[in-house]
């Protein structure tokens, strides 16, 4: 994965490595000073030639393109600036050209109106409303974004984990059924032991896999960036980012983000994450195991997958839309109690501060439901693993509960 990331990164840096030479034919002389040659972009300023000659020249020299600013008054020139090139130019390049020209032209226009640029610079104001709760906890809108990020990441991680490893459990149950080893195994262990063992084993394998990805990713990322770091920071995109970062306004923001991070209910978040993660995962994975036991092959799983996937997807959408809108609104609150959606929705709500009793109540409902689903799944599982042949209907599944 990391190797792939770096490969893509490398490819795009190679893509950007080519030094672009741009011919600029500025008949007005407005912007000639704006375009200064950098490592990756060489601006050749032409003068005293007509457009056709410039075009031929640019083409002969294999230039990336030709920027033409016709002789016009400053009020109207903006609509007649043209960029000629062999291939269609990259979007980011065009927009960076546009913003440079726009800035310059506005400055010139202001100057023409007799406005003192220094005065404008000095008179600029930045407003940032500081938020503080009645208890005196400071927050900000950046903080809200950040909470959303944390909650969203936690909820989404759970969602992905359930989908990926739930499917894995289902497939391994089907494999045991189709390879007919199941009867040998359950003459040694109880079906419920086998099912829970499978769920726990798969989830531990999943967590290990995640951990290895993260650790390995971090290590390789660190190693790679210390080796290739210098080269990578010099791509044109990086230049733009660096420009933005050197802006004093954004360093303030970074400082604020760090502060916000410290003010998050980290302990609550981590504990709730672990508990809801385990509860939600067990709830869904036992259903996946039951589905695997009920069918003979993967193509038959479709009709049973839908009722499992719908609440899960609903949870993510509720999380993504209503929680952003109002983390403590009716819908968000209700969905954070319904056991099939509560793990995802509650995880998204918690960074915004959910009363402890709500968290505990939701967790208790989740645990009760998960005990019920494990019981239910174990029943289906116990009967299903020994049933071959036709695909069962919901009615038959219900009957199995009584066997």
């Amino acid at each position, binding site marked *: 994965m990391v190797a792939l990331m770096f490969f893509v990164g490398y490819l795009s840096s190679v893509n950007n490595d080519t030094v672009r030479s741009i011919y600029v034919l500025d008949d007005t002389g407005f912007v000639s000073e704006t375009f200064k040659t950098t490592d990756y972009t060489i601006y050749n300023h032409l003068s005293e030639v007509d457009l056709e000659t410039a075009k031929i020249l640019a083409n002969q020299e294999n230039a990336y393109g030709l920027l033409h600013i016709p002789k016009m008054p400053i009020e109207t020139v903006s609509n007649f600036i043209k960029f000629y090139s062999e291939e269609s130019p990259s979007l980011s390049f065009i927009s960076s050209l546009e913003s440079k020209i726009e800035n310059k032209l506005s400055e010139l226009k202001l100057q023409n109106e007799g406005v003192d640029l220094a005065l404008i610079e000095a008179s600029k104001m930045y407003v940032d409303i500081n938020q503080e709760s009645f208890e005196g906890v400071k927050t900000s809108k950046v903080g809200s974004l950040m909470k959303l990020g944390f909650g969203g990441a936690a909820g989404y991680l759970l969602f992905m984990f359930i989908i990926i490893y739930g499917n894995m459990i289902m497939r391994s149950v089907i*494999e*045991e059924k189709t*390879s*007919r*080893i199941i*009867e*040998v*195994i*359950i*003459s*040694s*262990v*109880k*079906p419920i032991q086998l099912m829970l063992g499978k769920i726990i084993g798969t989830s531990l394998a999943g967590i290990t896999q995640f951990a290895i990805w993260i650790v390995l990713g971090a290590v390789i990322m660190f190693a790679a960036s210390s080796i290739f770091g210098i080269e990578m920071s010099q791509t044109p995109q990086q230049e733009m980012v660096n420009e933005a970062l050197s802006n004093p306004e954004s360093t303030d923001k970074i400082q604020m983000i760090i502060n916000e991070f410290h003010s998050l209910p980290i302990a609550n978040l981590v504990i709730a994450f672990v508990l809801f993660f385990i509860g939600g995962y067990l709830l869904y994975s036992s259903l996946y195991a039951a589905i695997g036991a009920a069918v003979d092959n993967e193509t038959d799983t479709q009709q049973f997958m839908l009722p499992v996937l719908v609440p899960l997807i609903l949870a993510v959408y509720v999380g993504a839309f209503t929680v952003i809108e109002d983390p403590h609104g009716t819908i968000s609150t209700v969905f954070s109690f319904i056991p099939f959606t509560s793990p995802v929705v509650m995880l998204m709500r918690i960074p915004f501060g959910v009363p402890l009793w709500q968290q505990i109540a939701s967790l208790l409902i989740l645990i009760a439901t998960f005990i019920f689903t494990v019981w239910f799944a174990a029943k289906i599982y116990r009967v299903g693993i*020994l049933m*071959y042949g036709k695909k069962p209907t919901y009615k038959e599944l219900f*009957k199995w509960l*009584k*066997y």
Partner: protein
Amino acid sequence: MQPKKLVILTFQNLLRLVLLFQCNFSYIVTSYTKTYYMSNLLETKEVSKYFGEFQALDAVSIQVPKHSIFGLLGPNGAGKTTLIRIINQITMPDTGSVFLDGEPLQRHHVQYIGYLPEERGLYKSMKVGEQALYLAQLKGLSYSEAKKRLKYWFDKLEIGHWWDKKVEELSKGMAQKIQFVVTVLHQPKLLIFDEPFSGFDPINANLIKDEILQLRDEGATVIFSTHRMESVEELCDHIALIHESKKILDGKLNDIKRDYKTNSFEVGLLSDNKRALKQTIEAKFKVAPADFKSLHDDLKLNISLGSDGTSNDLLGFLTSQAQVLHFKELIPNASDIFIETIQNIKS
């Protein structure tokens, strides 16, 4: 002696007697129950099982004597597999109980049972050795013990070089051998084979048959579910016949055969006038044509004597009529019994 002392002495003796009697009594009781149970390794008592509306087993009681090979017979769908699954605690009976070695069946008994199901398979992408070790450990063997025994069995069946192969590389018969090894590896008291010979070529089927007999001789008890009657004839000493969820016949195979024999004899007679001879015999006995191989062009008949009449009477009569080349009592084989019993039930 003082009377007081005498009283005490008498009392003591009385006490001793009572104790002795009690001991003896309890000894008799325990030894009785023990011998009663000990003769059967496995018993099911009135076991019934429903799947929804469908009754899979209807009050089935069987007794499997120790060190026997017990044939569990019946047509497809009769309930054999359900009964076997109940013995393996894969499904639970609705009513009735199962005893292993005198104890009601409990979870820990699984380690005394080795089960080779009819629907059997292995993890396809796993290596043979790893998989055998895993399955053996599930039955409670330690890693080192499992490895030691596996090595012994793999050498014995000459499959040692398969250890690192994946199961999907093996043929069906090869995989069956591994399943057999895994079934018997933990030296279970009770071995249950459901159609063990399906999928084996004749050579390997014989090999497995010999292994089963050897395991029996070493002290194991074998339950053997099949509808291949020739293997029943060869192997089983006890049978139970299950038909439409009910046990309809059980006991020692030889006893059952004795019950089912019709006092009939197969004869081959050398005569110049076969037609006349046949008519003469038909006049006295119930006769049906027979078919067996012989070197001569003889009259081949099945003669039924009915309840009275002995073989000597028949033989005496026949020798007076013609030259007897062939004389054999007709003993019903397992297949005949199987078919006859089920047809009787139907009609």
